[in-house]
């Protein structure tokens, strides 16, 4: 019997706002434990939540990118449960009225578009971080209260591959809209997937298994494929799939049981009485959308039409939003778009990889990269001079034009100087003119080779060619 895999995905995205969802504690990530904590984050009695405007804007932007209906009034609820990482004993979330509802995104399957519907998007707050040791656990409240967006898909995903594409798309939206780092390895994008299977043609859903702790997009795909296989083997053996929570074991590449699920937990939701309903005006919502940083699809379109980049290069540049933004900035200073793209992909990217840094840590102004591309392309310098200037530029963040002077990295462009060199070569090789006139164009290359040799390659090849031809024709 053949089974169809049914997958629904819940994604938690940690926002990169400057302050927390409901408190004014700063968020910088990676700081010492308990140094980014406000009164509310410790649930001290009498502290009260204050909704972060930027977090709301972020939620609007992502809702919009997912074609969702945006609620014009914000309501928050309490989700009540006890856990060691939950300071207040409840989490403030949006249960009854999520800010975004009923949207979709499209994934690309071998050129075919498939629409996956998104049920809801809401804002909530993160819990504190637990560091587990051999026989105790330490609590770091820096993470407590960081704004989260939760995005819940409809169970319309049918394979590990589709799930991967779905998560990639969400990741692309939240990173391009500058809402989140979207790093699964670091936990700023977290996936819980619900997997069930059913015989093809059946309308009824099978028993759902939840898989947690997926720390990379590749693992999402692997976990789902493994889980689908595990479940179908169970059914084929006449066994039942049990409702449970499993986690993905990266080493074994399989899902392992965490706990059996009893009846669904009761979170005793009720409206958060400390946050009044907040009306969002049409202008506010529209403004949040209008000021949203450019999303991937739009940027790609623009790179192909405005910069006329080939699609492979464009996609390479767009694979990292910050890299793409850098390219955009540099492109303001040159019209040599494809050359700039080539340079960014080979030279700049090579440098980043070699030093294991991100483009955000690359301290050279985009304008300077553009200038350098211009210098090389106009053959005012040769490629080894280009490399020399680049090496100094990344250290000093100075204009390549300045560096060119400092390094004396110029080419001989004066026609008369070049002519003198050419004439010297011709004088030593008297047959060259006749060879040339007899159609042996190789002579031209020979002369060029000789003068390059004499000058250590520092002759402007364009001008030299012109002079060589003139002299050979004489």
């Amino acid at each position, binding site marked *: 019997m053949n089974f169809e895999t049914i997958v629904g995905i819940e994604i938690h995205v940690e926002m990169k706002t400057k302050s927390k969802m409901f408190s004014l504690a700063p968020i910088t990530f990676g700081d010492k434990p308990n140094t980014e904590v406000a*009164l509310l984050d410790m649930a*001290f*009695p*009498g*502290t009260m939540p204050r909704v972060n405007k930027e977090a709301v804007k972020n939620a609007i932007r992502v809702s919009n990118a997912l074609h969702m209906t945006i609620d014009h009034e914000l309501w928050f609820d309490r989700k*009540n449960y006890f856990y060691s990482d939950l300071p207040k004993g409840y989490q403030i979330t949006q249960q009854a009225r999520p800010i975004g509802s009923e949207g979709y995104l499209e994934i690309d399957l071998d050129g075919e578009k498939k629409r996956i519907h998104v049920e809801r998007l809401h804002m909530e707050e993160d819990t504190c971080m637990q560091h587990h040791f051999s026989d105790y656990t330490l609590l770091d409240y820096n993470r407590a209260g960081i704004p989260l967006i939760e995005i819940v898909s409809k169970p319309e995903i049918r394979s590990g591959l589709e799930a991967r594409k779905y998560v990639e798309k969400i990741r692309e939206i939240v990173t391009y809209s500058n809402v989140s780092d979207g790093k699964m390895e670091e936990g700023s994008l977290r996936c819980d997937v619900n997997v069930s299977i059913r015989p093809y043609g059946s309308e009824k859903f099978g028993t759902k298994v939840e898989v947690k702790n997926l720390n990379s997009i590749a693992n999402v795909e692997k976990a789902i494929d493994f889980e689908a296989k595990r479940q179908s083997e169970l059914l084929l053996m006449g066994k039942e799939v049990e409702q449970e929570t499993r986690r993905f074991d990266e080493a074994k590449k399989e899902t392992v049981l965490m706990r059996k699920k009893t009846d669904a937990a009761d979170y*005793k939701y*009720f409206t958060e*009485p*400390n946050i009044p309903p907040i009306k969002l005006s049409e202008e506010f919502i529209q403004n949040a959308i209008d000021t949203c940083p450019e999303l991937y699809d739009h940027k790609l379109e623009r790179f192909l039409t405005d910069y006329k980049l080939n699609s492979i290069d464009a996609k390479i540049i767009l694979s990292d939003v910050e890299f793409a933004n850098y390219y955009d900035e540099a492109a303001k200073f040159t019209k040599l778009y494809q050359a700039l793209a080539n340079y960014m992909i080979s030279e700049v990217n090579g440098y980043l990889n070699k030093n294991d840094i991100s483009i955000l840590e690359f301290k050279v102004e985009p304008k300077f990269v553009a200038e350098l591309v211009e210098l090389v392309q106009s053959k005012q310098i040769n490629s080894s001079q280009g490399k020399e200037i680049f090496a100094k530029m990344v250290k000093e963040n100075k204009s390549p034009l300045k560096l060119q002077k400092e390094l004396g990295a110029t080419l001989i462009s004066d026609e008369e100087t070049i002519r003198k060199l050419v004439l010297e070569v011709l004088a030593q090789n008297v047959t060259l003119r006749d060879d040339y006139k007899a159609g042996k164009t190789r002579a031209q290359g020979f002369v060029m080779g000789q003068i390059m040799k004499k000058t250590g390659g520092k002759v402007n090849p364009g001008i030299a060619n012109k002079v060589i031809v003139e002299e050979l024709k004489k």
Partner: protein
Amino acid sequence: MNYLDLTLSEIHEALVNKQVTPLELTKEAIKRAKENKDNAFEMIIEEDAIKRAEELSKHEVPKDNYFYGIPYVAKNNLSTKGYETNASSNILNGYVPLFDATVIDALNKAGAILIGKSTLDELAMGGTGTSGHLGTTYNPYDPKHLHLIGGSSCGSAVAVADSIVPFALGSDTGDSVRKPASHSGLVGLKPTWGLISRFGLFPFAPSLDHVGFFTRSVKDSAIALNLLAFHDDNDSTSSFKPKVDYLKNLSSDVKGKKLAVITEIFNSIEDEAIKSSFLKLIEKLKNDGAIVEYINFDNKLLNAIYPTYMVISCAESTSNNANLDGIKFGPYLGGKTYQEVMYNARTNGFSPLIKRRFVLGSYSLMRENQQELFLRAQKARRLIVNKCNEIFKKFDAIILPASPTPAPLEKGSNEKVRNDYLAADNWLAIGNFGGFPSITLPMGFEDELPFGVNITCEPFNEVGMFNIASNVEKNTGFAGLSYQNHLEKEVK
């Protein structure tokens, strides 16, 4: 006579005229606090208060800065930086907040001197003043300690009624300021929900919680509200309404004012002294030009007040107090697992009464019960508030006895959920349901125990409320009433 026996505004005048200094007042207040036998204090703040009073005494007392140099007391569920704030619950023993509640901060800035933190019913979840971890708080009007003062703001009421301070902060979720005020001959106010910031008030049921306070005159109440009513960014429910000068607008002219007496409530009162005192007061109000009408509310709605209050307040409180787990603050009692840590802290930290309330609240919120309990309570709340709003369309205020009896005896009183409560015993909670401004002030005495009258108005009509209260005060002659003053009058 001592200056502490005067009202806040009178003390202020004496300060301005240099008849007394903040230091003298503070020393006397601390002395009286120590002498008091009614179990009013969780903590008396002596050293710091005197230091501060000395500093304040070095300067000229600014005129019209009514709180400058005034000793005061705060209920121990208001966060005070550096001073243990435990809401009279063992689970918060030893908790020393890192911050001041907004109201504490405002009083500090105005130059008021905090001399003590007062007792309350545990976590403010009671109405008798018997359930705090230090035991029963008694009524200063009964030195034999047979009578209660009521709660939950019991200690603060004692502090003002016994002339320890002229002003004390409380909190009011059902009637926790206005009921003890009735039992202790005080002016007890809770203004419109959102008018005074709740930041730093330990939450019991936020949708019903209010910061309120006790004074010995209506004028003092208006003065205090002038100081404490302002928008506070730290409380998202804090009102953005422009400031009103309640003192400047204080008038006792009630000509043409329409007052509603809810018939069913008045009729349920059996205490003859209270009934006749109230009827006499109504006659006086009428003589001053007020129009008083008896109206019907709806007995079913009135009977719903108590259960509605119980379910909503307990449901919200079980969530608000879920932060009390022994992990971040409060006694850590250990355990083999984190669950045991929480279990030990909570089992030992809460009294049986509080636990029962939490179970009731939590049960009401459970998925299978929410529709029939919590949501039904929220729906009944709406109907009750709608009914009140209908009344406020036609009337300036509702006026009724604040309590059907004077202070109750300790013997026989308990906090058990019962079904024989009178609507007259619970009606003040409608002020919390609708967030209405509501003030209790003394109306009369029975067997040496005071009882009060209450005036409740529509949201943000504090001016109208003070107006009527001021006329009542004029007619009763009880401005400045305290236990000491009452005794002196008796002697004369």
